[in-house]
């Protein structure tokens, strides 16, 4: 399923890349992104070397290349949209090309990281490098309930679709808003239950 593939970028594997500690991978990926961003605009050979390196690592990880490519293509329109603005500038063509290359390489780097590293492992790294506890708790809860809420939302939409025959634009907006509104009500009720469960297990704010 495309949707499942999109919602969970991590593909389990047993390669050396998968087994590296998450902290090292995060550091390497962020370092690589910073390097790409700070490189001069016409460092074409360095860009090519980085691209070759990324492909080599993906092959070594036996990553799901097709999934990664789909992900890259899905994110590319946003990059193109901003890069196109540079074409409006006089002499913007080299600027356009270098920004497009930079952004694509950065995207590929991050996609490779997420394809070979569990988000929960990244969270553990954030916790260890002393990102404020409240923010990490929020991220952890968000990650835990993301799929629960998305599925709940899809159940509500399915129920709605099976009962609604005419779908004009106005009713589509109303229906989507109805789903979102109800989802928030259910979310806040769920949050109450989660709070009680957390307290029962000894959680303190």
């Amino acid at each position, binding site marked *: 399923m495309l949707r499942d593939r999109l919602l969970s*970028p991590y593909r389990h594997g047993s390669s050396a890349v998968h087994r590296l500690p998450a902290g090292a991978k995060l550091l390497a*990926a*962020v370092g690589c*992104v*910073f390097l*790409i*961003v700070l490189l001069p605009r016409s460092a074409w050979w360095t860009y090519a070397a980085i691209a070759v390196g990324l492909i080599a690592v993906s092959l070594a990880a036996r990553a799901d290349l097709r999934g990664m490519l789909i992900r890259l293509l899905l994110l590319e329109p*946003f*990059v193109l949209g*901003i890069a196109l*603005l*540079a074409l*409006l*500038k006089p*002499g913007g063509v*080299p*600027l356009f090309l270098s*920004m497009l290359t*930079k952004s694509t*390489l*950065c*995207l590929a780097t*991050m*996609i490779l990281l*997420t394809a070979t590293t569990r*988000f929960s492992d*990244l969270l553990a790294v954030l916790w260890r490098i002393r990102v*404020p506890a*409240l*923010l990490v*708790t*929020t*991220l*952890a*809860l*968000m*990650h*835990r309930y*993301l799929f629960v*809420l*998305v599925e709940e*939302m899809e159940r509500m939409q399915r129920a709605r679709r099976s009962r609604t025959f005419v779908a004009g634009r106005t*009713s*589509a*907006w*109303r229906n*989507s*808003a109805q789903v*979102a*509104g*109800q*989802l*928030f*009500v259910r*979310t*806040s009720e769920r*949050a109450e239950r*989660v*709070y009680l469960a957390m307290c029962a297990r000894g959680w303190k*704010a």
Partner: protein
Amino acid sequence: MHVPDGFLDARTLAATAGLAAVGLGLALREVRRNLPPRRVPLIGLAAAFVFAAQMLNFPVAAGTSGHLIGAALAAVLLGPAAAIVAMTAVLLLQALMFADGGITALGANVLNLAVIAPLVAHGVYRGVRSIAGEGQQATLLATGFAAWCSTMAAALSCAAQLAASGVVAWGTALAAMGSVHMLIGLGEAVITMLIVAVVMRARPELITPAVPTMPRTHRRAVAYGAALAISLMVLVAPFASSLPDGLEHVAERFGFASLAAASQPAPLPDYTLVPLAGASPWLATVLAGALGALVAFAVAWFVARVLAAPVHPTARR
């Protein structure tokens, strides 16, 4: 509106990261001090909710569809500090898990969408409510206008960052992002109002508690304050947009510009391609902005009126 990696220059990255860190830090402190522990898990779940709600499609025309941004919705449903934390979590997860939005540009994205947008939304929401008063219609009107203003604020700040990095000329960036997001903001306003109307009908206590209604004299003070703020904006906005050109001028005079332009083959003057640089670009910008705000307010007022009708035919729950 997520800025990917590779577009902003080092100076802009550092400045936006610093501002975002300060905004997030203050919000975290405020949440830790003043939010009851009972509400803390709701921030995480609300972040997941915003993410899920962003996946809902709102068909626009000819097969295209828009989706929610959610900053104003979060501000109305959670209050400003919790909204900043929740929206930051959304952006962090999108960047770290889906490569959506850059890592180096994280500061800029957090500043635009998780700090500026909820803060502007909250300010406008409080402001409109304190003048328009209690009641469903007033709440919805405030929500809609807040959503529009927050979208515009985030878009303009994003445009300013792109322009400051030299990706786009200032005039092009502000005109392009501003005009597109005037429309996107209208969509955001209507979606946010529709959702808040549903929540308000089902669980009215979930909406951010009403501000105590102000006495009439205070109301007048707020109205004057708003008028002053708007006129300041009108006066300062063109100044802000002409300032960087001023900097460019200085750079040119002192010879920095030849260094900066060396990599570009055809250094035409910037302003030949700026669409708003007609006879009086200031007036054009100001008029466009004021007209957009007026239209947004009218749309929000109209939708609020429709939604706040006592018995709604399609609302069954």
